[in-house]
């Protein structure tokens, strides 16, 4: 397919063209220059390569599609993703993969604050470091952090599980470190192999999950609320 050039087309026209692609199509979007809402709401088996930096919500609200950003991404990359893959070959800003229900969000660089906030089932793999409050209120899904995790990791977690290859600067309320099982090692191994996170040793990651102390409103846990 001919590339779609944002120097000559509006975001609205580019997104409309992307929605009209047929299964199996591959297309490159040129000159993104950090524009917002690129490739949002896709619902087909297509591959979209964003040739440069993307702004807020790139690949958000998507299903089935593969969206690759060759550069950094703004807030909420892959937010509310349902299925498919959103991959950032650079750093991701805040709230990466927010509320994502399914599919996979991969960040080859670092992710900023509140990555995987309110995660609802998606898989999130970040090669580098994450900022504070990663996994805040995450309900379901898997998060792999290849680097270090900032403070308040996994605050108010529900059933999502976080693996950290590097250092954990601090756990959030109700998060705890648990023993690694063979199932965990297999999960991490699969991600490491699939996304080429060669720097991560699946047997040497820290598993963080919910201590489930906040599952039932406890009158004496006031400080935790």
């Amino acid at each position: 397919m001919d590339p779609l050039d944002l120097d000559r087309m509006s975001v609205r026209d580019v997104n409309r063209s992307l929605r009209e692609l047929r299964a199996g199509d591959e297309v490159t979007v040129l000159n993104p220059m950090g524009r917002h809402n690129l490739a949002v709401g896709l619902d087909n088996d297509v591959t979209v390569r964003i040739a440069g930096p993307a702004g807020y919500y790139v690949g958000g609200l998507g299903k089935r599609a593969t969206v690759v950003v060759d550069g950094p991404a703004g807030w909420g990359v892959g937010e509310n993703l349902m299925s498919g893959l959103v991959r950032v070959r650079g750093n991701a800003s805040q709230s990466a993969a927010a509320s994502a229900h399914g599919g996979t969000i991969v960040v080859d660089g670092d992710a900023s604050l509140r990555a995987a906030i309110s995660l609802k089932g998606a898989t999130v793999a970040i090669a580098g470091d994450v900022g504070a409050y990663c996994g805040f209120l995450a309900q379901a899904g898997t998060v792999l952090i290849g680097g270090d995790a900032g403070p308040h990791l996994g605050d108010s977690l529900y059933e999502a599980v976080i693996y950290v290859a590097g250092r954990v600067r601090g756990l959030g309320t109700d998060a705890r470190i648990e023993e690694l099982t063979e199932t965990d090692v297999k999960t991490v191994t699969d991600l490491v192999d699939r996304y080429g996170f060669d720097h991560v040793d699946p047997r040497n990651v820290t598993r963080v999950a919910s201590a489930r102390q906040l599952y039932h409103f406890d009158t004496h846990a006031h400080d935790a609320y």
Partner: protein
Amino acid sequence: MSENYTFNPDVLGEIRERARLGRYPIRGMGARRAVPNFDDLLLLTASASRYPLEGYRERCATRTVLGERNAREPVVLDIPITIAGMSFGSLSAQAKEALGRAASEVGTSTTTGDGGMTPEERRSSKTLVYQCLPSRYGFNPDDLRAADAVEIVLGQGAKPGGGGMLLGQKVGARVAAMRTLPEGVDQRSASRHPDWTGPDDLRIKIEELREATDWRVPIYVKVGATRTFHDVRLAVAAGADVVVVDGMQGGTGATQDAFIEHTGIPTLAAVRQAADALAGNDHVKLIASGGIRSGADVAKALALGADAVSLGVGALIALGCNDTEYDGPDGTRGDARPGYAALGMAPGSCVACHTGGCPVGVATQDPALSTRLDPVEGGRRVANYLRALAMETTMLARACGKADVHHLEPEDLVALTVEAAAMARVPLAGTDWIPGREGR
């Protein structure tokens, strides 16, 4: 000895409740305290200086169009009275279906809530508004595209600035699955959206939702009424097609009592401030909600500047909330009183929505209780109620000489109290005095 005003029996009860629980009381419904409301306003209907329109004969339009600013398919309603967002989870599936049936029958919209859209609700609702809330429970692009409008919720009148707390009793298997939560946990919902803060970022969020829906449907922004003037202006700056302003009398399924009674401003005051903020923006529409009960309330809200109203509690009451009886099999009626007693409540003043033990099947996930509401019968009652409200509204508008309910204006109103006059900025009845107006 007379009763202590400050430490009256109600207050004593509240202190004892806190002493027992060691936490704040949580309950359902809206503010119970007396605040200035639409009863404090009167309509100046026609006489000699103006002529009324003939009731039942001369036309008084109620058609309401929302979202023409950007949407390819604006929401077109037969009446300016809509059903507010209430979640499946807080309400039973039967209650949600009944509301959808009622709204469809009278040509208006209903709204999803925290927890997403159910197929029953989509099927039964001709026009369905899909809420995008901070929690994003069950939010997904398929339902987004299946909706007739999207409502981004910043807050609600019962708890502006607060998150949610749905107690575990109501998180049954279906609710838990829809919200991706373990069954039976007390769920803590966020007070801010996870991926944006502030109106500058909201602008980008709104654009995202438009892109994902191909600019087909209107985007509403709902705010709990506090700093209403500024909030409405910012919602417009962010690109909202419709602003929903929910006053402090607005209901809730489960919120801390301190929030319900002590935050926000009355709907009456909020509507006027919101209308001021929208002055000169004719393409952005205003929906007022919070304690709307009657066609008189509707007419007064429209006169103050609303384009439509939204109601929650009123519709639930029509469904059977707080009634002594419920829908039994084959048209029979069951006695709900023992159910209220079991909750420590009485029909007429029950606020136990949060417990999930609703004895009339409205605010419950208990399979045995929820069948106490017949979606068809309940829907019929709500439709009747909405029709009655619409008829009252047109009756009053005609009496003011208006051929369209949207032609009602603030000059059609006077106030009974100084407080209401000051908030609504209409004259005290029998005077031309508007408190606070310069030069008077």
